[in-house]
């Protein structure tokens, strides 16, 4: 079992993070924030978590992200501060599922984490695309999607073995 210390949140679509994460936008000197409401997330790990679950549920990792991560955010075990929180627990839960899904292949932790990163970027792209298409952040649509996909996805991971 791999340790969480080596796992770091990172993305190959930092551009999207910059446009959707308030704190990230604030750090960018090239960006002038006129309306904070335009930023759907406060921190990067929040967007990362959303992207991770969306990507996992759709099971369509963004493979092209591999080797092109431009920015590290934070280690998983430091997400949300010192105490346990829903982001960190959520990331660990998805990670465990990835681990279970690929247990027959005996992958190492880095391979599993790489897959998680690719899921996250795929989800972030999907999220960005959805916003672009709809002109707004359709939170309920993603939750509905989660309602629809989780049962099958869990069966894929847990029962098929």
């Amino acid at each position, binding site marked *: 079992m791999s340790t969480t210390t080596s796992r770091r949140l990172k993305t190959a679509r930092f551009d999207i993070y910059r446009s959707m994460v308030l704190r990230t936008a604030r750090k960018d000197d090239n960006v002038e924030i006129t309306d904070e409401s335009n930023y759907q997330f406060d921190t990067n790990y929040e967007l990362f978590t959303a992207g991770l679950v969306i990507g996992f549920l759709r099971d369509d990792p963004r493979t092209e992200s591999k080797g092109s991560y431009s920015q590290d955010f934070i280690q998983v075990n430091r997400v949300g501060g010192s105490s346990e929180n829903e982001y960190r627990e959520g990331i660990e839960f998805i990670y465990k599922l990835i681990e279970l899904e690929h247990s027959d292949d005996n992958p190492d932790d880095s391979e599993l984490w790489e897959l998680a990163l690719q899921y996250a970027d795929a989800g972030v792209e999907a999220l960005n695309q959805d916003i672009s298409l709809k002109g707004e952040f359709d939170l*309920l649509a993603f939750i509905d999607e989660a309602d629809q996909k989780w049962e099958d996805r869990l069966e894929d991971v847990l029962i098929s073995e």
Partner: protein
Amino acid sequence: MKVEKAIIKNFMPFYKEVPVDLQTNSDSPLILMGAKNDRGKTAFFTAMRFCLYGFEGGNTLKSEKRRQAINRKAAVEGLDEASVTLEFSHNQNIYEIERVIEFDQVDDPDDRNWKSCHVTVKKPSVSEGKEIVINQAPNEDPAKKYNRFINGILPESASDFFFFDGEELDRYAGSYNDSEADVRTAIETVLGIREIQNAIQDLRDEGKDYYQDEWKDKAEDVEELQDLSEDISSVQSDIEAKKTEKDSAQTELRQKEKRRHQIGDELAEASGVATKQDRVNEIAEEIGDSAQDDSLKGKLDEKRGARRELHSRLGPLMIGIGAKHGVENYDVSIVSGMEDTIEYLLDRDDCLCGADIDEDAEETLENTLEKLRKDEMSTISELQGFASDHLECLTSGDYPENLNVSQAKSEYVSIQEDIEGLAEDINDLEDEKETLEEEIEEATVTAEEAESLQETKETLDEEIGGLKNTIETLDEDLEELEEKKRKLEQTVNSMEAADEEEQRYRTLMKLSDECADAWEKIRDRYVETQRESVEKHASNIFQELTNKNDVYEGLTISKDYKLDVKTISGNRDIEEQNPSKGARQIIAYSFIAGLNKFTAREAPVIIDTPIGRLDPEHKQNLIEYFPNFRDQVVILYQPGELDEEDIKQMGDNISSHLEIHQRENDPESSEVSSIESETDLKRVLAK
């Protein structure tokens, strides 16, 4: 005037009522009335004059004559009044003149005195009886009605030529002395010249002077009219000036009211701008900004923040769905218990359900037990642990809005609706604000300008008030002036004919003057004609009456009515000729007869003592002439003047022959009776 009857009552010697019938007819004009001396012949003569004219003289003399006229016996007996009444016809009217002297009863007849006196004129009433047409006390103004009445019949001044004493006639045949003016006036009155003269005088005095006075009045009116016209013009000028002033004031008022109206509009617009600005400020405050929690933007930001938190929790929420699913559908404890159960079953021959555990079943149990004992199982257990932890974090973590997925969805929908509502409100308000701001921007009046306009409006209000007061005052002035003008015009209208009247009076005045001039010429001509006629007739009569036809050829009458005797040796005045008393009397008779022939008056001739000193020839000639004097000739004679031959000579010319004689058994009283017999005649004729 033709006397029908005389009634003498308690007058002089006539006691009680003494009626005297004096009727005559045209063929018998003479009434003879004989009386001895002191029987009342002169009293009767006096009574006739008294009735018509009252007594002559001043008040004292008149008073004494009235007292003496009261019959002594009547005074003692207290018969109250003495009177003379004449009934006569004149111009086909019948009149009755009654002159009364009232007195109180006295014990001594010498103490008798009159109390009052009056004269009345009556005439037959249209109904019956008589009506008084004139009732005048003697002391009243002689110009009153009675005088006008009697002057229209026989003026007193002319009466001397109708009522005369034959023995005093010679005064007309001599110098008129002091009374010549009166005689001349009397003659002119008899001839009607006096009327012409009076008419001329009236035309001069009453006519011309009257019209002159009227003309002067009207001339003054014309002058006044001119003054009034000037006044009207002046008032009209004042009115025009006031109207001009009022027009100017009204024009100024209209301009100022128009300006005030404009300012009112501008102020209303300014007021609208202020209201709009207030609304803009209100909207701005309501919208506010993010820092203001109570503002819409603050609330919106708050909601957006809440929404962003939910956005941020998208991942955990989606994972939560899976975690919950995993926890609920995949029980790790069951998996762990299975190991114990399999080991238990491997030690038995049959299953818990009663089935036999054969070798195949035992092999399966052993494989399953082996698999369960691998790491994978622990991984699933670990997964379930993460799932449980995650779910616990979702609902009971540090986050204040930790909600389960269902709650989060509801919350999100609510927040989203709030955000949309707030955004919509803000948009609406901002649109309204924008519209208002545009309107404010487009408004032409600024706040400073509005303040200035307000000051201007207040000033205009004061000026308009002043102008209205001015106009009101001008209206009052105009009303007064119009009233003044109206009154002046009314006065002028009432005097409009003044100028015309003035012309008319000028014409009348001139006409009156010309008329007087014409009448003067007529009078001169008439006087001359009358004088010549009277002279001719008097000359003829004189020649009939005189006993010296061989010497006297007639009479001449000068323009001053002085008589001259025309003799064979030339004309001489009476004094120069110096005829005898008898001859003078004949000359006077001739003159009076001439006058009576051409008189304008109609009156009886009453002659007292007609014969006097005439010699038989003159007497005879006169007796022959008496019937020719007038239509009514009353001859009052005394014994010796006439004899039976004379009476016989007058014969049918006598209507009645009366005698004034002593009342029977009353030596102080007289009465009048008709001479019915020869005896009576002889008695009255007896010397």
